[in-house]
């Protein structure tokens, strides 16, 4: 049975383009123009993944509200924010509401598709027992590439997909400096330097919440970042 992706996007052309791409990839796609339509549909059947724009028709923050409601319906349902808004505040708000990723619309369809696949893979992996060979261990850090899950001293660190990929790219070769472009490539995103910086900051904060002495993610000024064991 085909997985169902719900696209909540008030721009019809864009919605149709995304729908076409996902249909081509073998997904079932439902498009909704606003929150009411989407909620009505979700009431009868939850999709397997939801892609939500923040501003929906006459609700400039409608996406956030929808995300909250959706998260209330299902804790595991992968949710991606896909928006033209790229402000730090929006990203923070979106991820705090439980979204699995926050993407801006300059992302190519191929990249978007990769994310969707990755998220489904994570969902699948979470349902299966851990397989040790997929694990990447760096001191207290354990990265499960299959589930896209990070652990620090055995505690799960809740990272968004982009954040996970950044940590993964850095931790795979500890001590190697990864510049911003490399991190963007790894995370399949096109972002500017400031967004990378804020992503890194957010990652540090999440680790520091678990371990105040966390210092593994270092900035190499003018070059990029590296993971230190």
């Amino acid at each position, binding site marked *: 049975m085909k997985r169902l992706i719900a696209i909540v996007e008030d721009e019809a052309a864009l919605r149709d383009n995304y729908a076409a791409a996902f249909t081509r990839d073998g997904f079932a796609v439902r498009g909704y123009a606003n929150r009411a339509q989407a909620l009505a549909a979700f009431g009868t059947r939850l999709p397997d993944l939801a892609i939500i724009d923040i501003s929906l028709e006459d609700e400039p923050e409608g996406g956030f509200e929808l995300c909250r409601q959706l998260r209330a319906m299902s804790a595991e349902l992968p949710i991606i924010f896909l928006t033209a808004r790229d402000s730090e505040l929006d990203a923070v708000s979106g991820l705090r509401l439980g979204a699995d990723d926050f993407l801006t619309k300059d992302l190519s369809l191929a990249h978007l598709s990769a994310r969707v696949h990755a998220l489904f893979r994570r969902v699948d992996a979470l349902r299966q027992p851990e397989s040790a060979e997929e694990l990447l261990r760096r001191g207290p850090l354990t990265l499960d590439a299959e589930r896209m899950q990070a652990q620090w001293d055995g505690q799960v660190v809740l990272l968004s997909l982009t954040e996970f990929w950044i940590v993964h790219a850095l931790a795979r070769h500890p001590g190697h400096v990864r510049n911003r472009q490399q991190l963007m490539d790894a995370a399949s995103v096109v972002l500017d330097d400031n967004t990378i910086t804020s992503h890194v900051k957010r990652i540090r904060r999440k680790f520091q919440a678990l371990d105040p002495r966390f210092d593994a993610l270092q900035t190499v*000024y003018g070059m990029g970042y590296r993971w230190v064991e």
Partner: protein
Amino acid sequence: MSLRLKLLLLGLATLVLPWGGCRYAREMESALREGEANSLQAVSQTIAASLQGRTDLLYRAPPPPAEAADEPQPDSGAQQATAQAFDKPGPDDLEPLALTAAPLLDGYGDDWPHQPDAWTGFKKDEHHHFAVLSGVYERMLYVLLEVNDEHPLYDAPGTNTLDAATFGDRVWLGFDDAQGEQHQVFISATGPGSVSARRIESGEYGQRSAPVEPRIRGAWQPSRDGYRIELRVPLSMIGHSFGILVDDRDARGAAPVSYGTLRSDDLHTLGRLIVASPELSPYLTQFLQPGLKLAVSSPAGRVLARADALARPLTLGRETPVLASLYRRFVDRPGERQVLESTAPIYDRDHAAVIGSLEVTQTADRWIRLRDHALTRMLTFTLATSLVAVVAMFAFAAWLALRLARLRSASESALTRSGLVTSFPETEARDELGDVARSFSTLLARLNEYTSYLRTLAGKLAHEIRTPLTIVRSSLDNLDSEPVGEEARAYLTRARQGSERLNAILLAMGAATRVEEAIGGAERVTFDLVPLLGSAVAAYRGAFPGREFLAELPPGPVSLNGAPDLIVQLLDKLIDNAVDFSPAGARITVRLHLEPQAALIEVENPGPPLPLHVEGRLFESLWQSRPDGDSRPHFGLGLYIVRLIAEFHGGEAAARNLEDGSGVRVSVRLAR
């Protein structure tokens, strides 16, 4: 010309006030003068009226003889004589001057008043004539006799004055006494010097003698045309008539040529002596005031008596010499007489005949002094007024200028800073300047709105364009999966390239907004600038292989409290800029200076110098000065971001040309 100077000049215009005051003072002077003239006329008429019919006061009545006091005859005779006294004088009448001082009896006329018309001449023929000047002073009659004589002849010295053979030139004086009796004395001299008069008396037996009349004194001096005799006769000796007869002899003992105002046969007087009463002068004196001169004249015009106090100073205070001379110079009307005169006739008791005239003279001193006084007060007031006006205007001008300067500096700083000031001075003022300030303020507020709109425009535009661009790009992505021909694929590729470029532009446009956000969320940590700069420069060496990078860093640590990420971003922008504006292979120097309160980061690059007009605007939003032909998208945000970050660190950014003009140095000062 500054506003201050203009208003000062305007204030000086109040100096017209003193000028107007002077004009007014002149008018006032005229009025005063007229008033004074009127009052003087009144005074003279009053005094004249008081003298009306007082011939006894005007003219001298002969002294009544003590032994004949009871006789009515001399009274009537005196009455008779005085009744005629004011008649027009005949050729034989003598009208003495009223002298102001007694002449010295020395036979010289230099101490007499110089009045050619006061001389009375007697002429017998071309060779025989004399002239008389007479005057009265203190009850004495003074006579100056100028005799024309081709052969002046003295009496033979040591001879009998009665021996006709010894006679030289001789002068007879004849006069009557109070009783009307005729008396004669003669004056002769044996040489120059003082002379005395002698009277000829016949004794009981016919013997004649010539005793000296001691009351009459005189002096005889030779003169250019003959001789001169100066005489003094007490008026008490003289009645109403007086005469002079000159006996001119060409040789001693020869028959004389007699001529004069005495009958030559019996030496009886022919003319009158018209003299003022001795009471007249004291009488006039009682009316005298400083600056006033009173004179009573006979109908013929001869002054009988005068009281003169013209020169006596008035009690009014004098002006300071400087002011007085100024007034003389600028206010007094040139050529105007400085005295007022008024004449009033004195009538007899019946108001029928004029017995004399009173002349009152007043110096201008009095009203000029009054005028000067008024002028000084007026000048003081107007000058004080002018001074106050000038000072007030100057103060006002200074105040205005100050306010204008405040406005100016406020508008200047409002325009130079990109963050426009919203508070503007003087907007509370209720005058026109306040209106100007308010409209300025409104204008600036609108400009502010406009500028902030422009500043956010890029971000908004980027946001708005993103959705349609995403539609294009996702459509292109979808199209990739569709079967299209080779030719169509080429177009597809171009469309994709175009959309990628558009995307890059959008990213650049939103950069400033994101930096502002980043600054808003930045956390401050204390870190060492030296390794940061060192690693950053090392990174630039890798990133820009076409340039040489030199880092001049201090040996010790330079700790700074701030956001290292932002500092790196600032450096990125500076280096981007330096690379863009420097030729290939150029050396870019990154320098760090440690200052007491700040850290100074300098980035130097060789290249074209900054145009003059860009200084100060370089760090504004949306401003750029780049050579044409640069195909990469630029929105003039790079150095604006530098400024934002510098300001976040309590510092400032500045760009200057290198001293030798070979390049540009951008310096960023960060507060420590």
